[in-house]
């Protein structure tokens, strides 16, 4: 009976945590679509959606309902299995990131200490990198399976963009990892919470800037939304998609945005750390909950900045995109890495 020797409570606890985090992410993503429309409207002197429910708060449900009610079209000449797989893959890859993000410190519940993190993998950042790289398969497969030249062009662009910017992102991260000495996100956050230690943004400002730009490119957000350039490629890789499949693609973009905001907050802005406040003063459970709130506020701020940038800057031209990625970001990231190395040596 070795099976029963498993810590069943731990499995239940993790399953509940997974359910909560996945549904919370989806709920936040739902309202991120609403926030996107509102932010866009406010930045353009418009009121934005305000008819469905008080202040238009039911608008995301109306949008979702609309997408579900639409006719589901699978083109005859598409590769059907891949066509269906594409949006699911995009969504799965987007959601998988949330497994290693520390959403808060541990809480005491029913005599058990529960970490508010699904899995404290000691290679958390590598895992995130792997999953984020998988995200491009959603775009690739979607664009390829549609059997449409515009979709294929968009998929090509998406793939080349993701590859170019992942390089700079990785090098920017290496500099950070040299200072932290750990790949576990939990350890990185706890280091930043330690007294006398500032947030990593203070040690890695250039690294953060590079990471932020690359994260924007990885999420396919304007000004890096070349894979879905409406006016050049009709609609990009999801042109042939309709109904909830299209919804999944659009939705996974928002989930991606939330996850990269969470990663940036954890890596550079102290994660669930409350600035200028010692969490040890509060009871453990309350401190953990306030910490989750602090992380959520940081995520919201990042999402606002993402949107603010989207509604300010037009899209890059393809050659500008490649120039920026290969000729500016990667050299800068390398310089940043060298400076960090020199700084660490000087400290020794």
């Amino acid at each position, binding site marked *: 009976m070795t099976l029963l020797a498993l810590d069943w409570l731990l499995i239940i606890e993790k399953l509940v945590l997974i359910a909560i985090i996945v549904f919370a992410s989806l709920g936040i993503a739902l309202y991120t679509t609403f926030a996107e429309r509102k932010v866009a409207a*406010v930045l353009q*002197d*418009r*009121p934005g959606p305000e008819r469905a429910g008080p202040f238009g708060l039911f608008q995301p449900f109306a949008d979702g309902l609309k997408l579900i009610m639409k006719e589901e079209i699978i083109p005859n000449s598409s590769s059907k299995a891949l066509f269906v797989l594409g949006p699911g893959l995009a969504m799965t890859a987007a959601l998988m990131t949330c497994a290693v993000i520390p959403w808060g410190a541990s809480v005491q519940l029913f005599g058990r200490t529960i970490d508010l993190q699904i899995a404290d993998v000691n290679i958390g950042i590598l895992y995130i990198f792997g999953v984020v790289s998988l995200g491009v398969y959603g775009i690739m497969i979607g664009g390829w399976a549609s059997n449409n030249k515009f979709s294929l062009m968009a998929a090509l662009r998406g793939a080349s963009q993701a590859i170019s910017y992942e390089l700079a992102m990785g090098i920017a991260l290496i500099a950070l990892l040299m200072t932290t000495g750990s790949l576990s996100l939990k350890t990185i956050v706890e280091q930043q919470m330690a007294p006398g230690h500032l947030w990593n943004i203070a040690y890695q400002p250039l690294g953060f800037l590079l990471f932020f730009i690359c994260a924007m490119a990885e999420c396919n957000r304007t000004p890096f939304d070349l894979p879905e350039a409406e006016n050049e490629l009709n609609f990009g890789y999801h042109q042939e998609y309709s109904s909830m499949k299209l919804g999944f693609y659009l939705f996974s973009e928002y989930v991606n945005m939330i996850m990269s905001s969470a990663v940036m907050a954890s890596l550079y802005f102290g994660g669930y750390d409350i600035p200028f406040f010692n969490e040890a003063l509060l009871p453990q459970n309350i401190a953990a909950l306030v910490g989750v709130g602090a992380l959520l506020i940081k995520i919201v701020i990042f999402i606002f900045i993402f949107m*603010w*940038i989207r*509604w300010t800057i037009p899209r890059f031209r393809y050659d500008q995109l490649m120039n920026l990625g290969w000729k*500016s970001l990667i050299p800068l990231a390398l310089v940043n890495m060298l400076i960090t190395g020199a700084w660490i040596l000087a400290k020794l």
Partner: protein
Amino acid sequence: MEALTSRSVQVSRKPMSLAERLFLPAILKGMGITFSHIFKKQPTIRYPEQRREFSPVFRGLHVLNRDEEGRERCTACGLCAVACPAEAITMEAAERLPGEEHLYREEKYAAKYEINMLRCIFCGLCEEACPKDAIYLSETFAPANYNRKGFIYGKDDMVIPNLKTDPEGFAKAKGSPRNN
């Protein structure tokens, strides 16, 4: 070569400076501009609840006027139909019978008076042509309809409600948003 216009500008082909190549200063400046728009006044008029006022000279749907005692002013002289450049107006005249003096002001009146709102160009020439001040253009416009017949407005659509017996209907037909 002489320039064709005094407004031509020489295109600058200077290589970009470092600040320009970095994009960041320009991007931050742009973000400042968009952020300032958060606090700007929205010009939006939330339509069904709020309506924009028409100008005082707005020419909308026609009304057939009544005199001070509530009698129809129109005598079916046909001058409006003649003046109408779109040929939208048709009418049939009838003679006032004894006992109808409280309904019609003069001996002759319009038994049928129709304007095809799809033909009408809302020029207001009928208003100018009328010698009896019987037809006016109000400050409302024709609502949408499902068939063409619905756009042929008859007397029951256009004769203005009596101000004394039905002041609300009068205000509605007059169509000034200030009264709505």
